[in-house]
């Protein structure tokens, strides 16, 4: 189980939103690279970064902030937001992003996911953000008619490294992960799934370590890490012990 601390970028700052609403942004750090470094110093090995402005604009918008994060830390960085063509995929991977996350384009242009995953094996993930079972796109401002499972199936053979499944209604609300839906998706496909949205406390970490969640690759933690509800050292310790016990 990998725990990914999250940094969402809006106008160069590290923010957290509630339910993806840009009007409900809380600034948690003015210097995203320093936040990334703080996560590294706490013992995390991975980082989940979202270019929020990029997700809305359909192209990278927080390039400088992402580059500074990449220069500052040695974490495995996965990045999403505004990645809609091969040039952008290749550009980020060359700059040191470990894994790009394709969201909107996975719904609207599955051919891109296939091409990217074939060109860059193990370095392309798909972000599926579900609202009431249907996948939201364009920074979650729009909802498609497709379910997460339908889209996941379409890209299943392409060699996608992971699916990051976010319950939009829970994101930033600290109500707990929607594990049932995430596990159902993970059981239905062969691609590893990462749970996202709502992770609130150490109880979510414990639930992720139960046998029924074994198909999940990990989970993303946002607000709970920033406001101290989730103690990083305690969470990492539980995960480490679970790994050692296997």
């Amino acid at each position, binding site marked *: 189980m990998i725990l990914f601390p999250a940094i969402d970028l809006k106008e160069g700052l590290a923010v957290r939103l509630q339910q993806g609403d840009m009007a409900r942004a809380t600034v948690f750090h003015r210097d995203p690279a320093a936040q990334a*470094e703080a996560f*590294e*110093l706490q013992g995390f090995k991975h980082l989940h970064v979202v270019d929020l402005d990029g997700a809305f604009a359909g192209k990278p918008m927080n390039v400088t902030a992402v580059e500074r994060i990449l220069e500052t830390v040695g974490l495995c960085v996965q990045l999403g937001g505004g990645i809609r063509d091969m040039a952008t995929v290749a550009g980020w991977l060359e700059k040191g992003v470990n894994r790009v996350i394709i969201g909107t384009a996975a719904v609207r242009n599955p051919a891109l996911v296939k091409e990217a995953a074939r060109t860059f094996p193990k370095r392309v993930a798909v972000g599926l953000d579900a609202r009431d079972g249907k996948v939201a796109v364009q920074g979650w401002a729009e909802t498609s008619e497709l379910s997460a499972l339908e889209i996941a199936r379409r890209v299943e053979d392409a060699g996608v490294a992971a699916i990051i499944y976010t319950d939009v209604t829970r994101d930033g609300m600290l109500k707990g992960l929607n594990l049932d839906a995430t596990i159902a998706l993970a059981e239905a496909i062969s691609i590893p799934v990462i749970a996202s949205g709502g992770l609130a406390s150490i109880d979510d970490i414990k639930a992720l370590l139960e046998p029924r969640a074994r198909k999940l690759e990990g989970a993303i933690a946002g607000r709970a890490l920033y406001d*101290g509800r989730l103690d*990083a*050292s305690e969470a*990492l310790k539980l995960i480490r012990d679970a790994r050692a016990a296997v």
Partner: protein
Amino acid sequence: MSVAIVDYGSGNLHSAAKAFERAARESGHEQLIVVTSEPEKVASSERVVLPGVGAFADCRRGLDEIPGMIDALEESVRKGAKPFFGICVGMQLMAERGREYQVTPGLGWIAGEVDRITPTDPNLKIPHMGWNTLNLLKTHPLLEDIPLGPDGLHAYFVHSFELKPAQRSDLVAQADYGGPLTAIVGRDNMVGTQFHPEKSQRLGLKLIANFLKWAP
């Protein structure tokens, strides 16, 4: 003359190496900074730096997994009395043991234990993350010409645990975070900081420069 920064899989040492290189260059105490996982290079260096991030038990395991590294450290620091600088968990490892969820033996160079920080104000978040001034308890050559106290320079902390020395004489400086926190420990040729000198700008660079000329 060389300074060995011990690389034992505990995080990104890039910024630590950069800070030591910069301090060496700017202070005129030019020395070769070597990031190494080889015990031989630690043994042949004049000064030793042990960084460390994350969990106490992981860092201890990282040291144990390099054959000969603990011996090289013991030989250099304890027998050879080379100037030693522990940073964050690298400093905590100097203690007899860590109580980070489980009990893990430390190097036992400073009597005391590593335990969870307990700010008296429940609104203070853990990890303690941010900038604090330092309160001096004991003069130390590494703090020469560094403004301390409430109006002094700031040090950058990220931690949930602290080293609690058994002997007050090993405590050099504290920071305040809902009560006093161990910021610097020192004994003989060994010094350790809970904060990150490599992130602490002016205070950090001066501290490193003082370390590079320190002759305990």
